[in-house]
C-alpha cells in the first residue's frame, strides 16, 4: 500500500446515509425504546424510589461515560494531531454532542438525591462529626451548582468542537483545525477536572466516609475504553449497513484494536493500583469499599470484573490477527461494553444491595430509558451531516494510513 495517493474524491453516498436507508428509522426506534423505558421506570418509581434512583444513576453513568470518553477522544485527537483517526472522528463528535441531553437526564437524580446520598440527610441532621467536616463540599446547593458547572463546561466544549468541525465540511479551512488544536489543550484540563469531580460527587460520595485520590482517573479509564468499544461497534455496524466501506479499512480497525488493548490494560492498572494500595495499607476507612464488594454474591461480580474486564480481553486483543478481523473486534468490543456496565454496576449498586447483587426491573427500565434517549440523539446527529469530516485537510492522510 502506498503512503500517498492522488487526491481522493469521496462520493456522497460513501459518507452520508442515503435517503430511504434503514438507518433513518434508528432515531425513532431508539426513541420508542427510550419511551418504553421511561414509562416503565417512572411507573415503578413510586413503589421503590430508592431503587429507582440507584438504577437511574447506574444507567446514567454508563451512557454519560461513553459521551465523555468520546469528548476526550476528540480533544486528544486535536491536541496530538493524530492522523489515523480522522475517519472516525466524526462518529466521536456525534457521540460527545449528546452531552447536553444528559443535563436533562440528570433531573431524576436530583429528584432522588436524598435516596442516593446518605450525606444529604446526614448534613441536614448535623450529628455525624466526620460528615460535618465535609459539609462545605457535600451539601445540596453546592452539589447542584457543581453539576451545573460540569454540564455547562462539557456542553460548551462539545458543542464548540462539534459545530466547528461540521462547518469545516463546507469550507475546508485549515484555520479551523489550528484553532481547535490550540484550545484542545485547555479544554482537556477542564474536562479532566470536571470529570474527576463528577466522579467524586456522583459515585464516591455514595459512601461519604470513603475516599481515594485515584478515583477520578479510574472512572475516566473505564469511560475511555468503553468509548473505543462503542466506536468499534458503530463502525462495524455502519459498514454492515453498507456505509464507510471504502473509507475505514483494516488499518483503522487494527488501531482501534490496539487502543482497546492498551486502555483495557490502563484500566486494569488504575483499578489494581487502587485495590492493591488499599489492601496493603489495610486502613478500615479505605478497605470498607472492597469489603462491601466482597460481601455475598458481590464477590462473584468482583471476580467477574477482574477476569472479564482485564484478563480475558488482555489475551483476546493481543494477537495481531484478531485486531484485523472486524467481526472479532466487534465481539470483543461488545464484551467490553458489557464489562463496563458491570463495572458501573459494581461501583454503584453495593450501596443499594449490600448483601449481594440483585438485578431489578428498574435497572432494566432505566437502562432502556437512558440508553434509548442516548441512541436516539446520537443517531439523529449522525444522520445530520457526513459521517466523515470531509473538510478536514488531513483526511487523505487518514484514508491512506497504514499500520506497521
Amino acid at each position, binding site marked *: *500500500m502506498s503512503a500517498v495517493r492522488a487526491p481522493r474524491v469521496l462520493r456522497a453516498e460513501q459518507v452520508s446515509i442515503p435517503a430511504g436507508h434503514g438507518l433513518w428509522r434508528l432515531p425513532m426506534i431508539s426513541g420508542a425504546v427510550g419511551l418504553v423505558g421511561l414509562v416503565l421506570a417512572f411507573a415503578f418509581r413510586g413503589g421503590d424510589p430508592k431503587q429507582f434512583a440507584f438504577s437511574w444513576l447506574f444507567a446514567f453513568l454508563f451512557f454519560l461515560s461513553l459521551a465523555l470518553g468520546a469528548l476526550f477522544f476528540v480533544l486528544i485527537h486535536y491536541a496530538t494531531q493524530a492522523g489515523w483517526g480522522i475517519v472516525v472522528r466524526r462518529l466521536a463528535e456525534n457521540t460527545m454532542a449528546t452531552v447536553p441531553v444528559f443535563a436533562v437526564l440528570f433531573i431524576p437524580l436530583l429528584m432522588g438525591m436524598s435516596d442516593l446520598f446518605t450525606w444529604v440527610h446526614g448534613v441536614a441532621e448535623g450529628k455525624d462529626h466526620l460528615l460535618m467536616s465535609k459539609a462545605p463540599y457535600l451539601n445540596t446547593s453546592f452539589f447542584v451548582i457543581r453539576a451545573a458547572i460540569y454540564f455547562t463546561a462539557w456542553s460548551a466544549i462539545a458543542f464548540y468542537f462539534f459545530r466547528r468541525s461540521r462547518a469545516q465540511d463546507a469550507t475546508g479551512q485549515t484555520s479551523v483545525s489550528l484553532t481547535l488544536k490550540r484550545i484542545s489543550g485547555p479544554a482537556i484540563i477542564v474536562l479532566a477536572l470536571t470529570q474527576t469531580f463528577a466522579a467524586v460527587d456522583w459515585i464516591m460520595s455514595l459512601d461519604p466516609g470513603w475516599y481515594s485520590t485515584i478515583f477520578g482517573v479510574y472512572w475516566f479509564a473505564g469511560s475511555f475504553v468503553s468509548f473505543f468499544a462503542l466506536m468499534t461497534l458503530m463502525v462495524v455496524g455502519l459498514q454492515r449497513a453498507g456505509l464507510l466501506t471504502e473509507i475505514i479499512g483494516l488499518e483503522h480497525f487494527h488501531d482501534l484494536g490496539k487502543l482497546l488493548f492498551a486502555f483495557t490494560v490502563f484500566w486494569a492498572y488504575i483499578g*489494581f493500583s487502587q*485495590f492493591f494500595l488499599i489492601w*496493603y495499607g*489495610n486502613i478500615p476507612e479505605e478497605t470498607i469499599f472492597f469489603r462491601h464488594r466482597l460481601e455475598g454474591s458481590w464477590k462473584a461480580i468482583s471476580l467477574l470484573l477482574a477476569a472479564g474486564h482485564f484478563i480475558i480481553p488482555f489475551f483476546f486483543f493481543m494477537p495481531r490477527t484478531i485486531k484485523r478481523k472486524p467481526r472479532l473486534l466487534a465481539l470483543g468490543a461488545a464484551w467490553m461494553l458489557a464489562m463496563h456496565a458491570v463495572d458501573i454496576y459494581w461501583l454503584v449498586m453495593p450501596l443499594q444491595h449490600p448483601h449481594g447483587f440483585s438485578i431489578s426491573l428498574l435497572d432494566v427500565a432505566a437502562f432502556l430509558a437512558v440508553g434509548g434517549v442516548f441512541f436516539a440523539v446520537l443517531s439523529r446527529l449522525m444522520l445530520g451531516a457526513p459521517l466523515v469530516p470531509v473538510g478536514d485537510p488531513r483526511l487523505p492522510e487518514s484514508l491512506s494510513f497504514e499500520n506497521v
Partner: protein
Amino acid sequence: MTPALILAEFSTPAALYRGCERVRDAGYTRWDAHSPFPVHGLDGAMGMKRSMLPWIILVLGLGGAATGFLLQAWVHSMAYPLTISGKPHFAWPAYVPITFELGVLGGALAAVFGMLGLNQLPRHHHPIFDGSRFSRFSDDAFFISIEAADAKFDREATAKLLSAAGATHVEIVPETP
C-alpha cells in the same frame, strides 16, 4: 573459483523493492536483500513468511511470570512462611509486582536471544563481506544476494536477471578459502 553468491547493488529503496519482486517471481529461494535500514514492505516483496518470534516471546514471557508467581507462593506459603502485616500467607496481590517484572524479563530475553538465534548471529565471517562494494550496505547502498547453492542459480542468467531488475553493479563473490 567457487562462487558463493552473486551480489547486485541497487541505488534506492524503490529499486531494491522492484528488484526483490522480480527475484521472488523468478522462483529463487536462497537469496536475501541487504539494506542499511529495514525497507517498508520488503518482506512482502521477498515473499517471506511471518516470523515465529512472537510465539517464542509469549511462551517465555508467560513462563517467566509463572516462575515468579510460583516461587513467591511457595516461599511464603511453604518454604519460609511468616505472618506479615497480618495478611494471609498466600497473599496473591503482593506477588503481582514481581510476577509482572519477571514476565517482562522473560519476554525481553526471549525477544533478544530469540532474534539472535533465528538470525544465527553472531556470525562474524560470511562470504558476502568479500563483496567489493558491500561495506556500503550499512551506509546508503542496497543489495540483493543470491546464493550459488540455489537451485536456479546460473552465473549468466541470474546476473542478467539482476541487471534487468535494475541493479547498478553485479558481481560474483567467491567462497572464502
